[in-house]
């Protein structure tokens, strides 16, 4: 890689050990992907829940945090992805004081590095959206795909160590979606039916993700009949990234891609119709099954989604054998508290958690401790992930999720 004078100084340790380690890691990754040089980033976002960190990651963060302040502070605004637990509700979810202690260690270390504890996977709905052309280092696949596709920013999936490295150096290797060449469409899909709710937008993302099956594919989706809205494309993108590891899509006219980028995909389009979406949902169907838990998360809920949950629960009572978890960002939770939405949701017996996203929250341990097996959600991303955690997940609309939570079984 071609290095500037400042980058060579970082690599030589002239700017401290944290930045030396960071840029050495970035050069290893950049060389693997044939990056020619570095590109400055405007924001970083770190996934660092303690389930993923483990003791190794925690010790790594604490080691960096012990460096002198001038050497350890991040160089660009840096945010965090959801944490492993919400200290206000963790006992109700069967999480343990040992988990809470690990979270406290991670939080202390990240704060010492100058990281803003935003604890959210919807920064574009809650903190600050990047502009078209912004180069970013984001550590959540849902944020990356939304920022790349809808906002026109440029970034790769940056795992925790790499996002932190970018925060410490203020740059990232220029490869993948930082390059014009990687923004060109590679596969074309044509919608024959419009998804009717967020679960169906997730199902559509899952279908296209499975058809792509690679980070390096860029689907072009045609046939949009109406502007879907931010929450719909949030679920679509999160599922596309989850099922396909895809980081960029073009969906004219609501995405930021250029006409040339969209036209680059082969003309022959794969059709996706009502039957495909219904079949996707049917994979997870379990009508009549006794229900253990309903989760609204992955991605965290926007304020509008929270309002829909509150509206749907007014005057109802959740079945005593069902747990309902609503996960959102701390900023949305504050707003929901202020607007009375949290009170309405919790009056029905649900838990509103701030700063977590369920699957990053020791989901397997919670399942074992609480006896949770049958899980219902409107998040296609969540059903995809939790199959490996021992759950039997089902996917349905928000309204059916709520009706099932009240009935105690899937309706």
């Amino acid at each position, binding site marked *: 890689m071609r290095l500037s004078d400042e980058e060579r100084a970082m690599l030589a340790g002239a700017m401290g050990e944290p930045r030396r380690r960071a840029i050495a890691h970035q050069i290893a*990754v950049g060389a*693997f992907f044939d990056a020619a040089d570095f590109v400055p980033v405007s924001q970083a976002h770190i*996934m660092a829940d303690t389930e993923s960190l483990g003791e*190794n990651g925690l010790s790594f963060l604490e080691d960096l945090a012990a460096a002198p302040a001038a050497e350890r502070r991040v160089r660009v605004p840096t945010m965090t992805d959801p944490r492993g637990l919400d200290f206000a509700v963790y006992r109700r979810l069967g999480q343990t004081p040992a988990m809470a202690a690990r979270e406290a260690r991670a939080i202390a270390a990240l704060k010492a590095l100058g990281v803003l504890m935003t604890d959210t996977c919807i920064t574009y709905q809650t903190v600050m959206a990047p502009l078209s052309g912004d180069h970013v280092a984001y550590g959540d696949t849902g944020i990356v795909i939304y920022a790349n596709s809808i906002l026109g920013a440029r970034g790769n*999936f940056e*795992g925790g160590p790499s996002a932190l490295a970018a925060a410490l150096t203020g740059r990232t290797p220029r490869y993948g979606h930082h390059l014009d060449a990687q923004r060109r469409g590679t596969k074309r899909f044509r919608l024959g039916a419009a998804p009717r709710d967020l679960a169906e937008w997730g199902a559509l993302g899952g279908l296209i993700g499975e058809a792509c099956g690679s980070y390096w594919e860029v689907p072009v989706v045609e046939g949009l009949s109406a502007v879907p809205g931010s929450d719909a494309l949030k679920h679509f993108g999160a599922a596309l990234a989850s099922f396909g590891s895809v980081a960029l899509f073009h969906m004219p006219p609501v995405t930021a891609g250029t006409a040339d980028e969209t036209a680059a995909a082969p003309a022959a389009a794969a059709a996706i119709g009502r039957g495909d979406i219904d079949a996707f949902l049917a994979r997870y169907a379990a009508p009549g099954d006794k229900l253990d838990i309903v989760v609204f998360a992955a991605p965290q809920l926007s304020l509008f989604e929270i309002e829909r949950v509150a509206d749907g629960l007014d005057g109802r009572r959740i079945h005593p054998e069902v747990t309902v978890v609503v996960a959102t960002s701390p900023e949305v939770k504050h707003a929901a508290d202020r607007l009375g939405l949290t009170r309405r949701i919790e009056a029905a017996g649900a838990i509103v958690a701030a700063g977590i996203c369920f699957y990053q929250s020791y989901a397997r341990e919670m399942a074992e401790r609480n006896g949770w097996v049958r899980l219902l959600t409107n998040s296609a991303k969540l059903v995809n992930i939790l199959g490996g955690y021992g759950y039997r997940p089902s996917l349905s609309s928000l309204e059916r999720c709520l009706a099932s939570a009240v009935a105690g079984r899937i309706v």
Partner: protein
Amino acid sequence: MPIRLLCHPGIGPAVRGTALVAADNFSARYDLDRDRGIFRRPTHKLAGQSYVGRILVLNEAKGGVASAWMLAEMKRRGIAPKALVFNRVNPILAQGAAFAGLALVDRCAGDVTQLIHTGDELEIDPAQGRIDILNRDA
């Protein structure tokens, strides 16, 4: 003379070990029981099998960013694969391998999930972008 596969230069140290192969994709979070060291996801082609100390040979990386932290933690606890060989990885597995000091190669000449068989003895040199299948002759 062993069969030699040429790949893109990779990450991590040269290693030797036994292959565990499937024409399937991979995420440490989605697919593994990281306490027992087995594939847990019921629909994965390696479901129920131990990956510990094996050279995992798979198609693509999938899903999210967690593997970037998890590979290093798995290595610390002695429940990591010995190396990763993929047809093509996403940035997360490359970042995770670099952070963990785990051997990784991809972009080889041909489909590694077909060219390499479970049980093959492999020698991988990431710096040279080279895999030798020691138990079969070219």
